């Protein structure tokens, strides 16, 4: 136990971990060229083990294609650094007035590491597009999809049964909660080309016998997953719907078969549902109305100078209604969510907000404050000591 504590609290471990972190950042940066920031972050920093592979685009790939370098991922390094710092405090450091500055700096650092973990685990990012004069009560994630069955039979509300696409494994059956139905995944493609059947072209044979695929002759060609920052993967699946009486048929669903198409319906006796695969949605107990979006450019150029969205929030509880102006670096914080001005579309008639839920958003500010304060105390003490020494000479 003593040995173990000694190992975990040693300064050598700190140095080794910091060096490994630098290597991780280096290789992560190399891979960012190929995978973009989002995927690289998942591969290298939100993981315990990362493996770097020799990039296809580099010279001599034919000889070096086998080259793989495994390295500890961000979670492992961050976790070990945290343990290192905390055990060092338990075993080696003594809290004295002289060291209070260092304690503050270290505590700030611990808080920063913890807040990173909290952010990774709990924060959720999605986007909410709103048209001028329109309202929206949901946001959607561009990198996550869901299979939904929507029951619209009630007069004042709709019931959404949502199944994350992670559960769509070919051949697997999933019970649709609170309904008599279950679904069986025939096939699932994280990205695909969807088009009309043309003579000559023979993509995979369609197993669909219901809905839009048969009515409009739509065919699917599986495609490579894209990690480009401004592209959406066309998640697509063939889903068989099962009732207690047997199969109801197989539908083609895809996130490009959206509101522009008539809903795909399935029915069992009196009841009916809409089936769709769509970008994962988050609904809120309030609506955001976009009153006005303005977009200023630098004179004579197309370079944006400022964007701002004037919004009105209509909450189910009208005492919480509020007006806000959202612009760059000036988000709206509301009900634990932060709305940033992210983008715009449709000739400046649609504003797109980045909606972030991050319960730990304040922690990095506090930790940086603590570290700054710690440095001030530590260096201040040395400074005054120095002044006193000089005065005595």
């Amino acid at each position, binding site marked *: 136990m003593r040995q173990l504590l000694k190992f975990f609290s040693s300064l050598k471990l700190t140095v080794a971990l910091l060096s490994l972190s630098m290597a991780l950042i280096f290789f992560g940066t190399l891979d960012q060229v190929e995978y973009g920031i989002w995927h690289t972050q998942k591969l290298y920093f939100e993981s315990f083990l990362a493996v770097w592979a020799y990039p296809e685009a580099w010279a001599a790939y034919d000889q070096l294609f086998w080259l793989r370098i495994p390295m500890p991922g961000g979670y492992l390094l961050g976790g070990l650094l945290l343990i290192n710092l905390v055990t060092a405090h338990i075993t080696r450091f*003594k809290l004295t007035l002289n060291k209070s500055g260092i304690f503050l700096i270290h505590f700030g650092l611990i808080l920063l590491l913890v807040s990173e973990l909290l952010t990774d685990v709990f924060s959720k990012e999605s986007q909410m597009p709103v048209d001028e004069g329109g309202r929206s009560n949901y946001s959607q994630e561009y990198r996550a999809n869901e299979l939904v069955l929507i029951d619209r039979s009630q007069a*004042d509300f709709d019931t959404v049964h949502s199944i994350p696409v992670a559960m769509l494994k070919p051949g697997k059956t999933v019970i649709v909660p609170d309904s008599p139905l279950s679904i069986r995944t025939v096939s699932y493609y994280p990205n695909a080309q969807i088009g009309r059947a043309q003579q000559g072209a023979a993509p995979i044979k369609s197993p669909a016998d219901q809905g839009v695929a048969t009515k409009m002759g739509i065919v699917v060609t599986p495609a490579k997953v894209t990690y480009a920052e401004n592209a959406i993967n066309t998640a697509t699946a063939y889903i068989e719907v099962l009732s207690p009486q047997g199969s109801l048929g197989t539908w083609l669903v895809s996130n490009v078969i959206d509101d522009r198409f008539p809903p795909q319906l399935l029915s069992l006796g009196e009841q009916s549902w809409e089936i769709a695969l769509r970008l994962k949605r988050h609904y809120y107990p309030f609506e955001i109305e976009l009153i006005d979006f303005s977009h200023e450019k630098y004179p004579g150029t*197309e370079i944006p100078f400022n964007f701002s969205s004037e919004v009105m929030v209509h909450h189910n509880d009208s005492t919480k209604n509020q007006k806000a102006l959202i612009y760059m670096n000036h988000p709206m914080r509301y009900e634990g969510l932060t709305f940033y001005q992210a983008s715009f579309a449709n000739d400046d008639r649609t504003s797109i907000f980045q909606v972030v839920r991050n319960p730990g958003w304040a922690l990095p500010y506090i930790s940086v404050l603590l570290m700054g304060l710690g440095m001030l105390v530590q260096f201040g003490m040395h400074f005054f000591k120095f002044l006193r020494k000089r005065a005595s000479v």
Partner: protein
Amino acid sequence: MTAKMQRFQKNLRQQSIFFLAGLIALSLTGCEKAQPVSYQIPKKEQVVQTPGPLSTPTVASTEAAPAMQVLPGMQQAANEAGEIGYTTPENWVEKPASGIRKANFIITSDTGSAEVTVLTFPGDVGGRLANINRWRGQIGLEDATAEDLPAYTQGYEIDGHRGLFIRLEGETQSILGALLPFHGNTWFFKMLGDSATVLNHETSMKQFLDSIKMEAHSH
């Protein structure tokens, strides 16, 4: 050191251990599990245009548009895009326009055959590079990068509007084509077929492009 100080340090140690254990527990339970859920939403569905994914506000609005796929719903848009006038070059056999095709020709020669199609879609349909790469894929070529574009494209005026002439040589099949952004739509003129036939017909393809008259409703 006073007894009080020692007790404080011991407390601190104990608390740190609990803190550490808590963190580890947190990191183990934190991973979200994929689970089906049901929930209710108010009846009124918001109708919002599907916009592009996140792009930083520093880019011009055209780049905020997502890489759009050609969908069956585009038929109506194609119908609304107006018509074109043209002269059919020699040896080209015109087929009736069908579906989203605005014009359709077949060329046959000793070396093989080729097909010429004219299509139009709203927007930029994913941009110049994406479309050229789509064509490259059709004749078995690797995707190209934006830097490579000048090697096989050249500016080309069609009915007084700035377009792009594209020449793609594949192993057995080749493409001669042109892109023309026009009144919010993109027009695609494409000759695809056996390499020898296609490359021999560059002059007649350019003749065809030169004969085109755009007729927009908004003129």
